[in-house]
C-alpha cells in the first residue's frame, strides 16, 4: 500500500479510557515532501506521531512507515525513522559531540563510524564550535538542532517532527526551519506537527488538519487559505461605538461579510485585492473621522481555518503568543 507514500495511515484509533485520542484518523504523506499536521492542543497530533514512530500501540486501523507495518515490524521501522519530540531529547550533561557519539553507538554504527558521523552532523547543523561544550550551556535553538542531528544519525528516510519550534525564540525558530529545509533538500520525508499555520505554510507542501482525532481537511497551504477566504483586512477601533461605522465601510469595500470581535474591538473581512482594499478602507475611515487604533492585512490563522472547517474555535487562549509568532514569521520572511 506504500505506492510512493512514505507514511500511510488508515482509520487509526487510540483510546484512553472513554476518551478517543484518535478516532479513524487517515493520513498519506508522499515521499520526499514535508507534510504538515496541523491542529490545536489535544487534537491528536502527538498521539498520531507516537503511533507512527512505534512509541505507543494503536487500538485500531493500520499504519505503514517506509513501507513497513508499525505494529508488526516496529524494530525495522525504528531503523528507518528519526523522531524529534516536543522536548529536546538530548543528554544535558554530555557535550554535543558525546551525545551524537552515544546515540550513534546505540544505533549500532560502531565506535569509529559513530565518531565520524558525529563530526559530519556537527558540521551540517552548525554546531562544530560548540561541539565540546556541555549541552546544558546550549541555547534553545542549538539544543533543538542537536536534537535534530541525533534524529538524523542513520539518515532516516522519514523524520517525525513534533512541534519542533514550540517554546523557541524567533531566531532559534528560523534556525530550525533552515535545518528542516536542508534535510528535505537531501531527500528526507518530514511529517511536521504544529499549532501554527504560519509554520506549516513556510515548510509544508501539503497540510492535514486534525481535530478531535480525525483528519478534517487535507490540502495544499494555498488550498487551505482559500478555503478560509485568503487574506483578511483587520481594523481595530479605539471606541466600541465606532464598530458600526467601521463594519459599514469594510462591508462596502470588501467582497466578504465582515466579522466583528467586540471584546478586542476588531472588525475583519476577507479581501482579494489586498493593497487597494486596504488603501480604500483607510482613506474612507479617515474621511469619516473614525478613530482607528490599528489597521492592516493579516494572513488567515489556524483559528480562521478551524472556525471555517469545524464551526468551532480552537480552545487556545494564547492569542498574544500566536501574534508574536506571526510577527516573527513576518520578520523571518523579510530576512529571507
Amino acid at each position: 500500500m506504500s505506492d510512493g507514500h512514505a507514511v500511510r495511515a488508515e482509520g487509526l484509533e487510540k483510546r484512553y479510557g472513554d476518551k478517543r485520542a484518535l478516532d479513524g484518523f487517515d493520513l498519506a504523506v508522499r515521499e520526499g515532501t514535508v507534510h504538515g499536521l496541523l491542529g490545536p492542543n489535544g487534537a491528536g497530533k502527538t498521539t498520531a506521531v507516537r503511533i507512527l514512530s512505534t512509541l505507543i500501540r494503536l487500538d485500531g486501523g493500520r499504519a505503514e512507515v517506509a513501507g513497513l507495518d508499525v505494529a508488526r515490524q516496529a524494530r525495522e521501522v525504528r531503523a528507518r525513522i528519526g523522531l524529534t519530540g516536543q522536548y529536546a531529547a538530548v543528554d544535558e550533561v554530555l557535550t554535543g559531540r558525546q551525545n551524537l557519539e552515544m546515540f550513534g553507538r546505540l544505533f549500532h554504527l560502531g565506535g569509529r563510524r559513530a565518531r565520524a558521523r558525529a563530526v559530519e552532523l556537527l558540521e551540517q547543523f552548525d554546531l562544530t564550535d560548540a561541539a565540546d561544550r556541555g549541552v546544558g550551556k546550549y541555547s534553545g535553538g542549538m539544543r533543538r538542532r542537536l536534537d535534530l542531528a541525533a534524529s538524523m544519525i542513520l539518515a532516516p528516510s522519514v523524520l517525525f517532527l513534533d512541534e519542533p519550534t514550540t517554546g523557541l525564540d524567533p531566531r532559534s525558530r528560523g534556525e530550525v526551519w533552515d535545518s528542516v529545509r536542508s534535510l528535505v533538500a537531501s531527500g528526507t520525508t518530514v511529517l511536521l506537527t504544529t499549532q501554527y499555520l504560519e509554520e506549516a505554510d513556510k515548510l509544508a507542501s501539503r497540510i492535514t488538519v486534525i481535530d478531535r482525532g480525525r483528519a478534517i481537511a487535507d490540502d495544499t497551504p494555498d488550498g487551505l487559505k482559500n478555503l478560509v477566504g485568503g487574506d483578511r483586512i483587520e481594523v481595530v477601533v479605539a471606541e466600541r461605538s465606532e464598530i458600526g461605522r467601521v463594519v459599514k465601510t469594510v462591508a462596502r469595500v470588501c467582497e466578504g461579510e465582515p466579522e466583528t470581535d467586540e471584546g478586542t474591538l476588531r472588525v475583519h473581512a476577507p479581501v482579494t485585492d489586498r493593497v487597494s482594499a486596504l488603501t480604500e478602507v483607510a482613506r474612507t475611515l479617515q474621511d469619516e473621522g473614525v478613530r482607528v487604533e490599528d489597521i492592516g492585512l493579516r494572513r488567515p490563522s489556524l483559528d480562521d481555518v478551524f472556525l471555517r472547517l469545524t464551526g468551532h474555535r480552537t480552545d487556545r487562549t494564547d492569542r498574544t503568543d500566536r501574534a508574536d509568532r506571526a510577527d516573527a514569521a513576518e520578520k523571518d520572511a523579510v530576512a529571507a
Partner: protein
Amino acid sequence: MSALDLTPAPPERGRLYWLLADCGNIVRRGLTHYQRQPVNIAWQLGFPILSVLLYGYVFGSAMTVPGGGDYKDFLMPGMFVMTMAFGFINTATVVVHDSTKGVIDRFRSMPMSSSAVVAGRGVTDLVVACAELAIMMLTALAMGWRPDGGWGFLAAFGLLLWLRFALIWIGVWLGLLVPNPEAAGGLFAVAFPLTMISSIFVAPQLMPDWLGWVAAWNPISSTAAAARELFGTPVGGGDSWVEQHALLMAGVWPVVLTAIFLPLAVRRFQRLSR
C-alpha cells in the same frame, strides 16, 4: 549527504549480544556524567559523611551500644548501609529526568534493545555504589574504624551491593511513577525516616517496644547487622528472630524487594507503550 556508510551493524549477532552492547553504552553514558560532574559524587556522599561526623563526634559520647563496644565502630557499617539506601533516590532522579525530557522516548524510538535502558541504569548505579563504598570506607578508616579483613570484609561489601541492587528497582519504579524531577527531590523526605527507624544509628532494643520491632524488621537493619558481624565490629545484640538471623535475612530481604519491585518497574516501563 553523508560520505559514510550508514548501514547499522546487522542484528544477526543476536539479542543477548545487543543487550550487552547497548547496556555497555548506557553505562558509559552514566559514568561520563560523573566524569564531567565529579562534584555529584560528593553531593551524594555529603549526607552520610556529615552523619558520620555528627553522630560519631557530637552524639557519639552519649550513645551506647548494647553488649559493649565503641559507638563509632557500631556506626560505620550503618553509614555504609545508609549510603546504599539513599542510592535509590539517585536512580529515581536520573530516570525521572530521562523520562520527562524525552530521552527514554528517543531510546525507545531507536532500533536498540529497550531492556538495555533499564539494565544499563542498574549496572551504572552498582559501579557508582562501589566507588561510594570505597570512599566511605576510607573515611571510616581515617576516623579509626578497624574492620576484620579477608573474606568477611568482602562478604560484607557484597551484601551492601546486594541491598543496592534491590533498591535499583524501587528507584526505577519511582522514577517512572513521579511526575517531575522536583517530586523526585521529595523522596528524600520519605527515605530519611525510613533509614532512621532501623539499626543504622541506634540498636532497636533501645527503642520503645513496638518501634524496636519495626526497626528490627526493617530490611536495611538486617544488612547493617550482617555487615557489623562480618566486619567484626559491635553488632548491638538483639534477641528477636530477625536479629539473630541477620546474615540470612541480609541475603533474603533484597530477593523479596527485587521480587516485588522488578516486576512493578518492568510493568511501568511497558506502560509507556500504552
